[in-house]
């Protein structure tokens, strides 16, 4: 009986993951090779050309998603690293207060936050409308429906996921190591570049992982802030599944997106060890 305990404990959770994570992937792989339509039904024809067709039609949106996800990730790294650094080394007894303030947006729904930006940045809204009335901005000035709005929205929405893992890595750096470097006549810049930065890299890796994947696959920011010319792959997949009911094309696109992202993730996870990634993800 005691030897069975771990299996019995693990069984329900394991089955949930197997039935609703693994089996659906197989179902999606199968649907992506079928042909047919929503009315007459779909049949398995091993139609690998679904992938070619889907990719040639939507390569722009796929590449755009990777580009926007990448741009947002770089922006988050540049914006977030100094914040994580300051809190870790100079936050003192108020560290948890600063972290709490950074997490404040998570108490508001993701879509509501994004809609709030749509509202703030509206062409004649409270911000730009007022500035235009004062003559400080030209009438035609707008931010919504631009690349900047979408990348900015992604950067805004996922920034805390970049800051936290970097903070965790920096917080573990012993200040005496930095002092030792300075005692050995390293300048502040050199001490940072040769001691602090390398020690924080696991946090940077985890942060990139936790932001690039959701940012690239996010349909919400493009839908609410991007207008019609900034459609990302997430919007296409949603439309194909839910409006056009073209399940094979939608599945082929989802599968391709997942393959691209998973290859990226596992290259990272190998470099780090999955336990570390999980640890960072759990915080």
């Amino acid at each position, binding site marked *: 009986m005691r030897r069975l305990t*771990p299996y019995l404990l*693990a069984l*329900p*959770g*394991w089955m*949930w*993951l197997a039935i*609703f*994570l693994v089996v*659906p992937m197989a*179902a*999606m792989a199968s*649907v992506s090779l079928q042909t047919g339509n929503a009315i007459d039904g779909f049949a398995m024809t091993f139609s690998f050309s679904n992938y070619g067709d889907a990719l040639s039609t939507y390569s722009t949106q796929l590449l755009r998603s990777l580009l926007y996800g990448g741009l947002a990730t770089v922006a988050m790294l540049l914006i977030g690293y100094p*914040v994580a650094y300051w809190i870790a080394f*100079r936050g003192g007894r108020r560290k*948890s207060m600063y972290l709490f*303030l950074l997490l*404040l*947006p*998570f108490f*508001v*729904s*993701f*879509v*509501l936050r994004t*809609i*709030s930006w*749509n*509202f*703030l940045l509206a062409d*004649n809204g*409270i911000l730009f409308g007022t500035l235009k009335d004062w003559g400080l901005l030209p009438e035609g000035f707008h931010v919504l429906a631009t690349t900047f709005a979408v990348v900015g929205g992604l950067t*805004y929405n996922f*920034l*805390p996921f970049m800051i936290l893992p970097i903070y965790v890595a920096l917080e573990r750096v012993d200040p005496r190591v930095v002092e030792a470097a300075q005692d050995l006549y390293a300048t*502040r810049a050199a001490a940072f570049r040769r001691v602090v930065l390398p020690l924080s890299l696991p946090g940077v890796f985890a942060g990139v*992982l936790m932001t690039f*994947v959701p940012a*690239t696959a*996010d*349909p*919400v920011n493009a839908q*609410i802030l991007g207008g019609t010319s900034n459609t990302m792959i*997430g919007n296409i997949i*949603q439309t194909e*599944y*839910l409006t056009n009911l073209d399940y094979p094309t939608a*599945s082929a696109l*989802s599968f391709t*997106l*997942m393959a691209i*992202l*998973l290859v990226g*993730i596992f290259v990272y996870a190998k470099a780090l060890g*999955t336990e570390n*990634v*999980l*640890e960072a*993800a*759990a915080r």
Partner: protein
Amino acid sequence: MRTRGRLGDRLLHAYTWLIIAWLSSPIAVMILFGFNDKQSKSNTTWQGFTLRWYAELFDVSDLTVALRNSLVIALVSTVITVVIGTMLGLALGRHRFRGSGATNFLVFAAISTPELVMGASLLSLFVSGNVPRDANTIIVAHVLFSLSFVVVTVRARVVGLDPSLEEAARDLGASAWGTFRQVTLPSILPGVLAGAMLSFALSIDDYVVTSFVNGSTVTFPLWIVGAVKTGIPPQVNVMGTLIFGIGVLIAIANAVAARRRA
């Protein structure tokens, strides 16, 4: 040298506050426009202070239904997630068993799968199996994406737990269940509660996965996105403000309680 360091620190301090202000600005706008005494259809310019939307909070009937759906779904999926997630976290944290490596991998895969792919693949399964989409399929999906977070937080507590405590309880004649209830559970409880709060928050917030598996059931985030084109009623701001307020209060109470324990 020293003064430059201090100046740099000051600049970084100001910069940190600037980022906090940036992150909080849409929340401030959301709260403020819940008090806007708007006369026209659109809620875009400030027209004076009112508490009207708080009094008429439940006057938009499909919005109220959507919020109620979200709360019920969050509650049910949290209960399921916490029970099976705690069990799995105990198994993985305490025991080495055949398949534990593969299970750890599944837990990791569930965290790292993009929401979009998770929703799309679940819909593929439901379409292939002719499963009608409703609140039940939403609950299935929400348990799936919350499960790993409970497993990870519980597992971390279990790993940090001294096994000799449980052995001592056994030596003193406690049954397996008694040991679990009186020794193991109290020590992993903070992890379980953290996981529960996280599950609830993830569930009530989710738009992407839900949009694939909802059928004709509408949740709070889905309703809001659907209403963007026609204009968001101020009641949404009020509900967002109340959820925000309750969440912050719980977090602060939690932090105070943790400090008192320490």
